[in-house]
């Protein structure tokens, strides 16, 4: 029984069957990659997991609780954090303020006029945010306005904002899309470090095979809305069905 169980999920957009009978089980403390050609339904699947879309059929359970019918912020409170394809950060705020907002957000998600109860608690939260920034190597940028940073730094900040909430499951939607090679490598190194040092499950959707093969423990290949195979990276590399569906005849891995 994995931490995230997807059973028989289907989603239609008008006449288009975006997802059909998707079964997926993500084991705790692993990195699970979901790959597939454009239009395979990767992002639709991810949106079904975080409550942005509601699947037409099937069930999604996270740590024994069904996530269906819950709003995105409620699903986050269960312990799922999401990193977007284009970094979604608070662009007008400083890096430190960006970090403080997830720190203020309590797990019960209730609205509070006073996010902090005491000066000690505030100091504690600031220390926590600073430690997290130090972990991703951005402490010296703490006073920068978030929108003025490079794509790679924005991505780092977004990951830090997700991690400071100590989620059980981190969802990454093409974390290196549109990045320079150096930034991609930095992101891979960061994710590897997260995987090794933290008690966390990571699900990653990615186009870049370099990223997938350097991180994933398990890979699910999605094609035309259904999972084609699920296996270890080594077996996926040699699988002829995957080559045909996804990599094409000409491309070599």
């Amino acid at each position, binding site marked *: 029984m994995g931490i995230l169980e997807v059973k028989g999920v289907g989603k239609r957009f008008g006449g288009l069957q975006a997802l059909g009978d998707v079964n997926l089980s993500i084991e705790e403390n692993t990195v699970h990659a979901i790959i597939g050609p454009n239009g395979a339904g990767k992002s639709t699947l991810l949106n079904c997991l*975080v409550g942005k879309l509601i699947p037409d059929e099937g069930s999604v359970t996270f740590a024994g609780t069904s996530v269906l019918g819950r*709003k*995105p*912020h*409620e699903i*986050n*409170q269960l312990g799922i*954090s*999401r990193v*977007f394809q284009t970094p*979604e*950060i*608070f*662009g*007008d*705020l400083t890096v430190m*303020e960006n970090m*403080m*907002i*997830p720190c*203020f*957000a309590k*797990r019960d*998600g209730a*609205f*509070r*006029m*006073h*996010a*902090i109860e005491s000066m000690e608690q505030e100091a504690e939260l600031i220390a926590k945010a600073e430690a997290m920034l130090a972990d991703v190597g951005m402490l010296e940028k703490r006073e920068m306005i978030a929108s003025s940073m490079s794509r790679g730094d924005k991505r780092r900040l*977004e990951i830090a*904002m997700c991690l400071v*909430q100590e989620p059980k499951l981190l969802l990454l939607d093409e974390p290196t899309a549109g990045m320079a090679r150096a930034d991609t490598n930095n992101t891979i190194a960061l994710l590897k470090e997260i995987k090794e040092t933290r008690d966390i499950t990571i699900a990653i959707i990615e186009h870049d095979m370099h990223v997938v093969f350097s991180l994933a423990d398990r890979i699910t290949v999605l094609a035309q809305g259904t999972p084609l195979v699920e296996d270890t990276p080594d077996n996926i590399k040699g699988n002829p069905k995957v080559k045909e569906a996804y990599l094409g005849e000409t491309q070599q891995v």
Partner: protein
Amino acid sequence: MFGLNKKDTSFLLIVIALTMATPILLQPFAEGSELAQFNGGYPDLMQKIAIFGIFAVGFNILFGLTGYLSFGHAAFLGIGSYAAVWMMKLLTMNVIPAILLAMIVSGLFAAAIGYVSLRRSGIYFSILTLAFAQMSYKMAYSVLTPLTNGETGLQLALDDPRILDGAAEGSSLPVTNIFGIAMNSSYKLEALGRVFTFNVGYYFCAFIAILAFYVAIRLFRSPFGMMLRAVKSNQQRMTYTGLDPKPYTLAAFVISGMYAGLAGGLLAAMDPLAGADRMLWTASGEVVIMTILGGAGTLMGPVLGAGVIKYLENIFSKINEGVLHDWFSFLPDGVENVVIWVFARFTGEGWHLTLGVTFMLVVTFLPGGLIEGLRRLSKRVKHGSQKRDKYDDPDPEHRPEPGKRVAGE
């Protein structure tokens, strides 16, 4: 001090000093001189500046922090005025209960209107608030006439109960007061050829305005204020951080509605009548202009904007053709008439044109409002005028010093 850091404390102290000295600062020209018309130190104008300052500061909590542009805030101003006048009719002429009721009632209305309007964002939110405000305005004229007294407006009458004040003596209407001190009483000081008016009503408004301003500073600096800025910046990320933006925006809406109600209550406290005109959409537009003119999202900007607009409104609308004739009588007849014709477009009835041109210039050249202008000015004074923007900073990495060799050498 008072939970503020050093910078904010000195900022607040400066604001307090300026507010206290307003009757002197707005009276810079000697009585009887040509420029005496530009003196703004009379109670009515000063009260309006303080009151609309409160209104704009409250509006800025919603618009400046969360980015939700309400086009119907004047509804709360009007509701506050009606509530205050009713309190004065029924209970007492003391303004304290009147103002409290104004805030409570407008807060309730804001909660109801905000709950519906905040289901949408952007232009749809603006249109919804505008629709509610126009609805309130039309209802005040029609079905709610028993409560609002329709076109005449709600006024005091001699036979009002006023339970706490007891029976009225004489045939004149009682005046608004605070624990017996009449709002319209003033102390006039003649010095340096000028008349300075220290008015009870103004100082009462100023005291409330400072309180309101202090609350706004605390709000801006609090985690709650940070959340509101997060709403403006990225609602998607906020949702995926486990926070529902709606209660935060609703709280901001209610708070700014209560500020508007407070301002409406104070208007009634200075002059105890309430009309539906206060809820008209032009009044809602005015507070938007005040906030943007001064600088949305800044603390001082809205107050500055309110001050400038109320000053322009009161001073420029007083300059009629007669005054212009006096000014330009030294010119030859034909030229004088042309000059007066041109100036008359911008003064008297035409003061809106002055406001429009000012607004246009500020928005075009100082998108951050008058506050940004002041900031640039102080920078210019401090650092000299060479550096105009960030591109003038030395940046050896991207713009290295030109090499000694020139092509073709």
